[in-house]
């Protein structure tokens, strides 16, 4: 931490000294995009800087999402915050509650005199980052959604049709059984247990994960994911685990690597896995929609987003905010947004960029890349718009802990989910009390 704040101090000091000499306004951008995605971020800044001379965007890699958030908090407390901070979706409620620390993107654009139409953005994405009063709070930079990846070679070897992936949970169980019979040690696994199996599962089946429209309508929301439908689904997975059809591979995205390596044949994970699968997997693979239960009315609805958005920090000079606004305007340009979408597998930012990608025939040439988009670009309901909860980081960890005890058989499904709900509700009550004023 010390080293980090030292580095950020010197960076800010450097910026302060070098700015007048260049007569160019610098905009600091802290992000969490490693390797290939980091190159993408740098290319965006380079392109923006070369197209105009008034502003200079400086991207700085600050480690993982939680590390860069901690670094920014430390920097903010000592008065050295960056202009733009990339924050993962579970940090959204925390950022929204920190009113003095951020400036809404809608206000930044308006003050800078940029033409800005919130309706141009993909609703399911932008809606998540919009306040109840309709003001856009952060810029929807990189959004993903959970999809179903499967190993076509393994499907062939098990006598399954590689062009007909299972679309419902009963079909997944059948396919897993066949894969196991053909000698596969890990037929099915999942990344981000809470995000894929409970949060997106809820929206996909049009049931609430938490009350108050999943927390979108107020901070007095409480968790509701111990309903009969949720119990049924986790029970189903627990049974699959007992039979060796579902193998738990750890928290977070730990399971991703077991799919790339071919160890696991089916996985529910982020749509942004696409780029890594293309690079690392030595087998043919396919993408399909998230499985659902066909007898549930209203399913499939839409899935919820993951990924991150860009927040503007408070306490900067007006001309610097103009630079931020100009950069966001650049990111929203149809060509730029479409290129980003095709390059990374993240969702398109604007509707126009989606249409352009579609017209150019990208989805036809790269089958499966449209799954995430079609899962997201739908009319959303109050129950499926998104999930925005306080102390979400802790809630996800609690869900992980309880699910682990269910998979290992130490707790029954009901005990586990009830406990996750009551422990999670404590976190919500605490957040509500802390952010009343």
């Amino acid at each position, binding site marked *: 931490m010390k080293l980090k704040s030292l580095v950020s101090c010197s960076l800010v000091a450097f910026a302060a000294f070098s700015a007048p000499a260049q007569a160019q306004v610098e905009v600091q951008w802290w992000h969490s995009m490693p390797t290939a995605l980091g190159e993408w971020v740098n290319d965006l800044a380079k392109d923006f800087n070369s197209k105009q001379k008034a502003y200079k965007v400086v991207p700085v890699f600050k480690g993982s999402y939680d590390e860069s958030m901690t670094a920014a*908090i430390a920097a903010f407390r000592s008065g050295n915050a960056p202009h733009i901070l990339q924050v993962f979706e579970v940090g959204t409620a925390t950022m929204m509650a*920190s009113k003095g620390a951020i400036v809404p993107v809608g206000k930044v654009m308006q003050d800078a005199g940029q033409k800005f139409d919130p309706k141009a953005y993909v609703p399911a994405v932008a809606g998540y980052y919009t306040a109840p009063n309709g003001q856009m709070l952060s810029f929807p930079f990189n959004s993903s959604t959970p999809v179903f990846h499967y190993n076509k070679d393994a499907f062939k070897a098990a006598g399954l049709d590689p062009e007909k992936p299972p679309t419902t949970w009963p079909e997944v169980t059948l396919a897993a059984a066949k894969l196991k019979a053909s000698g596969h040690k890990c037929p099915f696994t999942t990344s981000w247990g809470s995000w894929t199996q409970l949060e997106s599962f809820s929206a996909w089946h049009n049931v609430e994960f938490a009350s108050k429209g999943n927390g979108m309508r107020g901070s007095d929301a409480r968790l509701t994911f111990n309903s009969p439908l949720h119990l049924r689904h986790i029970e189903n997975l627990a049974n699959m685990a007992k039979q060796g059809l579902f193998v738990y591979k750890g*928290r977070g995205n730990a399971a991703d690597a077991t799919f790339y390596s071919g160890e696991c044949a089916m996985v529910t994970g982020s749509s942004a896995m696409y780029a890594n699968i293309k690079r690392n997997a030595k087998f043919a693979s396919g993408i399909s929609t998230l499985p659902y239960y066909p007898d549930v009315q209203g399913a499939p609805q839409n899935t919820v987003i993951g990924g991150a958005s860009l927040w503007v920090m408070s306490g900067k000079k007006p001309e610097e905010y103009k630079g931020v606004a100009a950069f966001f305007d650049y990111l929203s340009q149809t060509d730029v947004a479409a290129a980003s979408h095709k390059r990374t597998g993240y969702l398109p930012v604007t509707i126009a960029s989606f249409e352009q990608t579609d017209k150019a025939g990208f989805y036809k040439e790269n089958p499966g890349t449209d799954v995430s988009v079609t899962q997201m670009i739908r009319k959303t309901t109050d129950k499926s718009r998104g999930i925005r909860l306080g102390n979400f980081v*802790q809630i996800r960890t609690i869900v992980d802990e309880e699910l682990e*005890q269910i998979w*290992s058989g130490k707790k029954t499904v009901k005990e586990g989910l009830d406990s996750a709900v009551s422990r999670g509700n404590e976190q919500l009550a605490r957040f509500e009390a802390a952010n009343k004023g």
Partner: protein
Amino acid sequence: MAVEKRVRFQSWWLPWVLIAPQMAIVLVFFFWPAGQAIYQSVLTQDAFGTSTEFVGLLNFTRLWSDQTYLSSFWTTAVFSVLVAGIGLAVALLLAVMADRVIKGAAFYKTLLIWPYAVAPAVAGVLFLFMFAPSVGVVSYGLRYLGVDWNHLLDDDHAMALIVMAAVWNQISYNFLFFLAGLQSIPKSLIEAAAIDGARPWRRFWTIVFPLLSPVTFFLLVINIVYAFFNTFGIVDTATQGGPGKATSILVYRLYYDGFKALDLGGSAAQSVVLMVIVITLTVIQFRYVEKKVQY
């Protein structure tokens, strides 16, 4: 203490000046942060520190009413006893063996000291790879022995994993001190015992081990403190406190609440609790265990 060797200073201020640099370091690096922690522990703040509220002992009462926090005391006790116990025993064994080596002794010792250069977080990752269920080198071998290793879901396996990583990381330190201790034991004592007909086993327990007791005691204190404070990197990379909360030791929980969950007040309260525990443990060790130590 037969001869008094006290130095008397001519002026009253010179001793204060001489001690000042040391005091400054202690104040700035120990007392000031400790004071900050105590101050933070009675506040709640939002993540960015834009609103601060004095809440008295709320952060502490919250801890005592949290069942998972109370159970992590037990987890920590098990973990520290295992790490200190196994760490000392293995290091002592290695030191006794290394002390007997004549050819290539330096090479052998260098290898044993190596692990200390590895950061705890990296040690955690190393063990994670070796023990990765179904694909790790060790877990693959274990399957042939009939052990289905899965620290992702088995509490005991997870605890064993972090204990092994923590012990491995600390063993060089213990080894160095034991080896130095062994080499300072006069050979004549051991030879005299050998002439009297004492076998190696008996020589070790009646001569070597008692003479090593100051070193052992020092290492016991150091290892307990190590297990309490310096192991969160191992836990974070290897198990993240799971499965469930099976490996969520106090210091990991503190790290998680402070740096991942951004609850600075709660995290500070935990560090105050931890501070009290370690102070108590150290006092107990010095008051009671030290009496049995022969210098």
